[in-house]
């Protein structure tokens, strides 16, 4: 874990309210594992006071990318940063995805901005990979919001699109597409990695549980320290409260109490 002043290399608008920011952060880039996140101080004054967490989307020599959506004050400030600006980052934080060689069939299921943490796990899988059947299901409201499709395709895995308005690929929710693909399979060598809105994840988790699949999801909660100290970021797990910043943000789906209405962030 490092605290660094990262230099913004670029901050490109890639969708309605979506941006990709490249940051120069050698140490964080060196240690980052798929699914981990960075905690960014957006403002140097008190508005907003706290840092904001963002998944590490990509990671290459000496730099990381984050992919983010503007939803409030913190992300709005981020979206105004330009090349050369500095940002105070903590990272890499949290527990990432686990990929085991035994998995032979793998689904990556993303909804909306949930695509952010999944790219690195896809990379890892394809690196580990020969002989695996890997499918990435990318869901979004419409085709403009399918972010980085080319990147995904260049990984050499099967990419399928679901859009709610049917403007590209399957028309409907990505969880429904997933349901169709796995039909009523049961398999212990099938693994699912997912991130997206809670109702979608709930569905993925349920299907995976029925199928006996290994399923990991990346979850969100409002964060304080990001380091496991404040106990502010908990969600309800089957064994009690779990800190998203420490036991997560990636959890085995079965660790989570999916029927807790407070899973949906307020």
């Amino acid at each position: 874990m490092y605290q660094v002043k990262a230099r913004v290399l670029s901050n490109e608008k890639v969708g309605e309210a979506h941006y990709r920011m490249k940051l120069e952060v050698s140490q964080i880039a060196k240690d980052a594992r798929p699914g981990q996140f960075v905690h960014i101080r957006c403002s140097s004054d008190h508005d907003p006071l706290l840092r904001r967490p963002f998944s590490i989307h990509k990671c290459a020599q000496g730099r990381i990318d984050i992919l983010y959506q503007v939803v409030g004050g913190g992300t709005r400030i981020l979206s105004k940063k330009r090349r050369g600006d500095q940002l105070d980052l903590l990272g890499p934080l949290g527990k990432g995805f686990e990929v085991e060689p035994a998995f032979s069939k793998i689904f990556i299921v993303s909804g909306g901005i949930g695509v952010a943490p999944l790219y690195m796990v896809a990379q890892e899988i394809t690196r580990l990979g020969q002989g695996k059947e890997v499918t990435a299901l990318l869901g979004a409201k419409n085709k403009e919001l399918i972010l980085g499709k080319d990147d995904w395709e260049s990984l050499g895995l099967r990419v399928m699109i679901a859009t709610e308005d049917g403007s590209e690929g399957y028309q409907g929710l990505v969880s429904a597409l997933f349901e169709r693909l796995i039909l009523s399979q049961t398999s212990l060598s099938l693994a699912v990695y997912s991130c997206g809105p809670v109702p979608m994840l709930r569905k993925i988790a349920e299907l995976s549980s029925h199928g006996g699949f290994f399923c990991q999801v990346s979850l969100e909660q409002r964060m304080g320290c990001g380091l496991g100290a404040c106990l502010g970021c908990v969600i309800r797990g089957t064994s009690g409260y779990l800190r998203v910043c420490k036991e997560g943000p990636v959890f085995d789906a079965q660790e989570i109490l999916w029927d807790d209405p407070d899973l949906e962030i307020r």
Partner: protein
Amino acid sequence: MGNIPDLRVSLGRIHLRNPVLVASGTFGYGEEYKDFVDPGELGGIITKAVTLKPRKGNPPPRLAETPAGLLNSIGLENPGVEMFLKEKLPHLKRLKTKIIVNIAGEKKTEYLYLAEKLGKRGGIDALEVNISCPNVEKRGLIFGTSADLAFSLVKGLKQATDLPLIVKLTPNVTDITEIAQAAEEAGAEALSLINTISGMAIDVNTRRPKLGAITGGLSGPAIRPVAVRMVRQTFQKVNLPLIGIGGIMSAEDALEFILAGATAVAVGTANFVDPAVSLRIVEGLRQYLRKMRIDYFHHLIGDLRI
């Protein structure tokens, strides 16, 4: 040690290398910040509250931001004193800094039992008694809002342990100096102030409270003027050393408390914003002393010019 400027201060029997502590609940049990802060460079660490039994804490969300402030409703989640002694204290003991353990309870006997248990172990320099908790035996009346309850609790604790007792006051009272005086009379070694101010926030789109527990405690820069005022009021009424707490983000903020009468400060919410802020504050204090040509930090305590 004898270096100038000399940052050392004493809270009764507790002698600190410098006046900067980290506040309870914002620094865990000392492990979480190890990559950012060498505890040996701090005055000390005040731990997250320890209770007799493990506590699950409140439902999420537990945090909500407000202008220059943070509402939290952690609800004293902690593993309980047995686990604390087994899993947290061994690590804490190894740190080269003062270890102050924050204790909380719902009944007087819980506090006493806790204090006794903790007092028997080595490695703890003081207890910070969080009296912002509801007393289940008195219809939920907060210990820290009644001079009588506070007095009787501290008096009891004094008999239960030899550890120095730092009483942490709640700001949610009409006159904080009354409670401060009660704690002083009962034998407190020092006072910490302030704990969080009770508050709430509502999401007007969902029409739901932003916190799962509905209300929570307000911390951060927003509360600093209230905390500084309370430190000054208390400084004028009691003779105990005070630990100033509330919205300290910088050395300058810390100095407001010192000039108002605090002997030391504890940094809370700011640790979330910048995990190394406590060290930066130590350094900032040193620079201020140099700039002002003051050799001994303790000369600044209460040195407000009216």
